């Protein structure tokens, strides 16, 4: 019997069964009504949830529908929908204005007003005018916006600041929320919460016992709760020993009763927890649901709600500002103010100390590095300048510390009784703060410091270190936020590169060589849990040690190289210093920024052609293999037994054989054994000479790694070192004088790395400079090494490609591609110049060289055309894909020639045709302006047919929509053929 798969009913004349999808058997048939109901409930579109067939519905139009919609009706409907959409867009506009302009302006205005209030109270009058703001957004914006000082730029700056502040607030709300989820997901933490609850239950249990005893007036009447807890614990012991029988019976009764109480408590608490979870989930859902958010923002729902939402937002915002920033800031400012006022002597002390330090430094390094500049002395007279951004941030911190210490003191002194919930909440808060702090230090502060160090260590490349030092320092204090962000980005980039380098080494070496570096791919590594479990002291120690390692590493490996280059190269051939014209204040608008962006795009494209990873991997393997062979370390590094390397003086040791070996066992590694894994010295003796040596050695390898400190941390814990099992280690050969050999290996790696990086940076720059001096010096008025790099990099890479291919045919293919690429670039640049830049020139005076900017823009257009998938160039796009679908090496020559011919013809048409028309027209109008105007005019004219086509299509679609809206009487499901 055929039944509907949803209601399990049979076919009736009114409700026939359909078979609309590929499903067969008992679920083949369905009623149209049932199916439609299910589709609206499931909200997954008109698709079968099992076989993914799209259901086909045909609209049934009423029989009195006219063949063509009458014009009156059409225009009526059109005007209605135009009005409606105008209304919607007006509303969107209103909402956008509200949230993106008005709200930020008012909030940032309020922000600065209340801080001014603090300033007036707690700052010396002479300084009040200097600090009118809390320069948060201001420090991020380019200098450009402040130069004109007009109303609009002022409003713009305020809006921007408001947006920055609001997003910062949103972050401070969202981040703890996520962290809370992580923390609650952590098993150890939930156990901790349970423990608190259990303790509380025990406490209450004991309290109950005491109460009962008091009532009875028995022997325990004068005991306090703590004693009873002890007694109860004791009692459980006694109970097992079956002593004090009569007391046991009494206690047993109490215990039963308490058990019941406890169960009830637990049940209640579970119910409460469930309720709480439900509430939170509901709140979350509500927030996550688009509709609610949209309604809150004012896109949907009554317009009145927009003003209510605004009010809520303002209240929240003001509350947040007052609680999170203003109060701590005021407290901190007041504290600092008091210190400033009363303890002038601090100034003198600090002056004196600084003077001594400077004198010492000057004595050691000479006065060129630490000059007695005006800036320095003025800095010295006032040890603390409350007008700077850093001071503001510091004062907020002081305020927080103050409040926190007050709370801490209160908790310590008065010891208020807390309920379980409060205790658990406190625990949760503590965990959240801990996680945020540790992650903040590791993800924000750490990379930032790395960036700073890197910056300092590459300074010698750009000129005299001591001059640049003070220059950059001044820039930093002028644009602190821009600088912080920049350094953070640089540091993060560096750390990622470093991690990639380590993982590359890991791939090449025997597993276990790098056992002391944590493998980021290790599945058992749970960062949140680790942060929660280990103590703050331990973690800070770890971070400080690994920070020290990084610092030493950067200083030694990069600083020394750059200093050497400066000493060796600065006088010769004008290779150094590099010119970089970085104006940090205007970084976001500056040339370097665009060049960096451009270059990133380019290198992305190139990387799809040259497999950089493979080349790097191959090079490193070769370097490592050869060096190890020379140093007889093949067995240790690669587990590659070369008998020729083995010397009778060498020894065999147990080395860790995988990267996931527990670090607590590390003490047991590097024990000397025979080739067949028999310990030479009995294993009982904990510390042999080899062992010590191996430890020292692991330390020396560890010197450049983040987690090396784990080793130290684990051994200091004083835990018992678990013994090794045979699956933990392999026996490898170590040659005599092992330590110096490892050192030599590290030095080789260092020198090769330095040479490689120098080559990668210097080759493009030298190529670019050469090109500039030969061809381009007429086009570019100013030319820094950033330009040299971005021009030189693709050309140098092209040379590399040509040189690295052995076949002459492929090489000539490269040349062809390269030449056509240049042709394409010139054509695009010419089009950009004619259609955009010259028109823009009419309105804006620009003194940049035209050719340079045309080429830059043409280049960007090409890169954009390559990467933006929506920018499909009609003919060229498919041709381009066809040409390069197999990479440059095997490009399709036929398609390439087609591409070149079409694109040249097209650009000729696009550039030359309007020029000719312009020439003809020039005969009539006799004005030079026609040559500029003809391009946009022709562009507009050529767009007209496209636009008309679009409009026509739209009208047809709209007519169909009207039909659907006015004349549809129902839908009919289609059976599948």
């Amino acid at each position: 019997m055929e039944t509907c798969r949803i209601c399990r009913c049979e076919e009736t004349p009114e409700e026939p069964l359909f078979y609309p999808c590929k499903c067969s058997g008992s679920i083949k048939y369905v009623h149209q009504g049932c199916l439609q109901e299910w589709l609206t409930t499931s909200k997954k579109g008109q698709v079968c949830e099992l076989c993914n067939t799209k259901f086909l519905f045909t609209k049934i139009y009423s029989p009195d529908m006219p063949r063509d919609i009458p014009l009156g009706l059409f225009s009526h409907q059109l005007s209605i929908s135009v009005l409606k959409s105008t209304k919607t867009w007006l509303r969107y506009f209103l909402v956008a204005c509200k949230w993106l302009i008005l709200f930020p302006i008012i909030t940032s205005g309020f922000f600065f007003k209340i801080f001014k209030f603090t300033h007036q109270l707690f700052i010396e009058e002479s300084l009040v005018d200097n600090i009118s703001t809390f320069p948060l957004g201001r420090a991020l914006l380019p200098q450009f916006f402040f130069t004109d000082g007009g109303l609009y730029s002022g409003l713009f700056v305020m809006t921007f600041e408001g947006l920055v502040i609001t997003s910062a607030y949103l972050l401070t709300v969202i981040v703890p929320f996520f962290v809370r989820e992580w923390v609650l997901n952590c098993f150890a933490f939930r156990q901790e919460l349970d423990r608190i609850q259990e303790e509380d239950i025990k406490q209450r249990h004991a309290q109950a016992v005491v109460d009962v005893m008091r009532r009875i007036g028995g022997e325990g009447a004068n005991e306090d709760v703590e004693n009873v807890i002890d007694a109860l614990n004791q009692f459980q012991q006694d109970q097992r020993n079956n002593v004090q029988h009569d007391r046991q019976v009494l206690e047993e009764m109490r215990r039963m009763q308490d058990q019941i109480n406890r169960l009830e408590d637990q049940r209640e608490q579970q119910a409460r927890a469930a309720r709480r979870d439900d509430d939170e989930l509901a709140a979350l859902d509500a927030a996550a649901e688009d509709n609610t958010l949209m309604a809150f923002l004012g896109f949907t729902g009554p317009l009145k709600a927009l003003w209510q939402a605004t009010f809520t937002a303002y209240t929240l915002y003001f509350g947040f500002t007052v609680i999170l920033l203003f109060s701590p800031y005021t407290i901190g400012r007041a504290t600092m103010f008091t210190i400033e006022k009363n303890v002038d002597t601090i100034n003198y002390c600090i002056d004196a100390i600084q003077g001594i330090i400077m004198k010492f430094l000057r004595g050691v390094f000479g006065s060129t590095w630490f000059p007695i500049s005006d800036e320095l002395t003025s800095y010295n007279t006032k040890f603390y300048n409350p007008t700077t951004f850093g001071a503001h941030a510091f004062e907020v911190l002081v305020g927080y510390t103050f409040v926190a210490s007050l709370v801490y003191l209160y908790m310590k002194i008065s010891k208020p009784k807390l309920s379980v919930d409060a205790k658990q909440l406190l625990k949760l808060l503590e965990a959240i703060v801990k996680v945020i702090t540790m992650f903040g230090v590791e993800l924000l502060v750490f990379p930032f410091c790395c960036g700073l160090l890197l910056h300092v260590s590459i300074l010698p490349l750009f000129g005299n270190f001591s001059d640049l030092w003070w220059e950059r320092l001044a820039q930093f204090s002028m644009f602190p936020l821009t600088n912080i962000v920049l350094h953070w980005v640089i540091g993060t980039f560096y750390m990622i590169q470093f991690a990639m380098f380590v993982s590359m080494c890991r791939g090449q070496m025997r597993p276990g060589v790098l056992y002391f570096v944590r493998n980021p791919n290790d599945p058992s590594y749970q960062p949140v849990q680790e942060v929660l479990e280990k103590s703050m002291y331990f973690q800070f120690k770890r971070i400080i040690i690994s920070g020290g390692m990084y610092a030493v590493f950067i200083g030694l490996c990069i600083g020394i190289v750059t200093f050497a280059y400066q000493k060796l190269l600065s006088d010769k051939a004008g290779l150094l210093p590099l010119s970089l014209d970085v104006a940090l204040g205007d970084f976001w608008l500056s040339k370097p920024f665009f060049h960096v962006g451009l270059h990133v795009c380019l290198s992305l494209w190139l990387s799809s052609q040259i497999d950089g990873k493979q080349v790097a991997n191959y090079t490193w393997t070769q370097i490592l293999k050869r060096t190890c062979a020379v140093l007889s370390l093949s067995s240790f590094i690669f587990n590659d037994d070369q008998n020729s390397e083995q010397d009778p003086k060498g020894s065999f040791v147990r080395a860790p054989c995988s990267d996931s070996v527990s670090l607590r066992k590390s003490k047991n590694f590097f024990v000397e054994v025979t080739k067949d894994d028999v310990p030479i010295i009995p294993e009982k003796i904990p510390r042999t000479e080899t062992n010590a040596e191996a430890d020292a050695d692991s330390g020396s390898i560890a010197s450049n790694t983040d987690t090396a400190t784990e080793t130290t941390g684990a051994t200091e814990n004083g835990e018992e070192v678990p013994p090794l099992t045979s699956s933990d280690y392999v026996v490898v050969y170590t040659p005599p004088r092992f330590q110096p050999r490892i050192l030599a290996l590290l030095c080789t790696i260092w020198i090769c790395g330095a040479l490689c990086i120098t080559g990668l940076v210097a080759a493009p720059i030298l190529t670019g400079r050469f090109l500039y001096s030969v061809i381009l010096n007429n086009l570019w008025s100013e030319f820094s090494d950033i330009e040299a790099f971005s021009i030189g990099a693709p050309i140098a890479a092209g040379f590399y490609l040509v040189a690295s291919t052995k076949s002459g045919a492929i090489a000539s293919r490269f040349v062809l591609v390269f030449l056509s690429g240049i042709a394409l670039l010139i054509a695009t640049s010419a089009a950009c110049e004619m259609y955009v830049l010259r028109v823009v020139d009419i309105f804006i005076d620009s003194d940049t060289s035209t050719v340079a900017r045309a080429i830059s823009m043409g280049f960007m257009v090409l890169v954009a055309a390559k990467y933006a998938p929506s920018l499909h160039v009609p003919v060229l796009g498919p041709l381009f894909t066809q040409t390069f679908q197999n990479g440059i090496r095997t490009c399709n020559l036929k398609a390439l020639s087609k591409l070149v011919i079409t694109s040249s013809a097209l650009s000729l048409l696009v550039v030359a045709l309007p020029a000719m028309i312009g020439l003809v027209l020039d005969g009539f109008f006799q004005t030079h302006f026609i040559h500029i105007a003809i391009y946009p005019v022709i562009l507009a004219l050529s767009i007209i047919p496209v636009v008309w086509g679009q409009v026509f299509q739209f009208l047809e679609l709209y007519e169909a929509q009207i039909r659907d809206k006015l004349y549809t009487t129902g839908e009919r499901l289609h059976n599948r053929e």
Partner: protein
Amino acid sequence: MSGKRPSVAQKRLMKEYKQFISDPPQGISAGPADEDNFLLWECLIQGPDDTPYEGGLFPATLKFPQDYPLSPPVMKFTCEMYHPNIYKDGTVCISILHAPGDDPNMYESASERWSPIQSVDKILLSVMSMLAEPNDESGANIDASKMWRDDQEQFVKIVRGTVRKALGL
């Protein structure tokens, strides 16, 4: 229900019941708790052989929503169950009992979720196979999940305890 036309849910459940008693799957028995109200069923599931649950007989309830079969029923064991995919209160967490809209664990594909083509016998069979093969990814009982992964022996021991308890031994 008297005087009212039986709703779609009631009608469908009636049909399902008829079908169920005409061809009951092995190891499962089920039926409405009350002949007037088909929206609450009681069932008994046998522990699958060769699993720690072997020999057990587990009572559970199936609560159907008013708009069944558009929304899935909720299944809850009324005895103590120790299983990675069963909450401590007995509620079963299995993908075919999740409505297509909500996805608590964010990993189930739409085709694994509730659809009106499912039925009581299919649900109970799925639950039975879930007893035999816990799903590691969607932990409803984290402790059990962890135990099942890390310490099979202990897991079996606890489960055997619950089985004995369910049988009243």
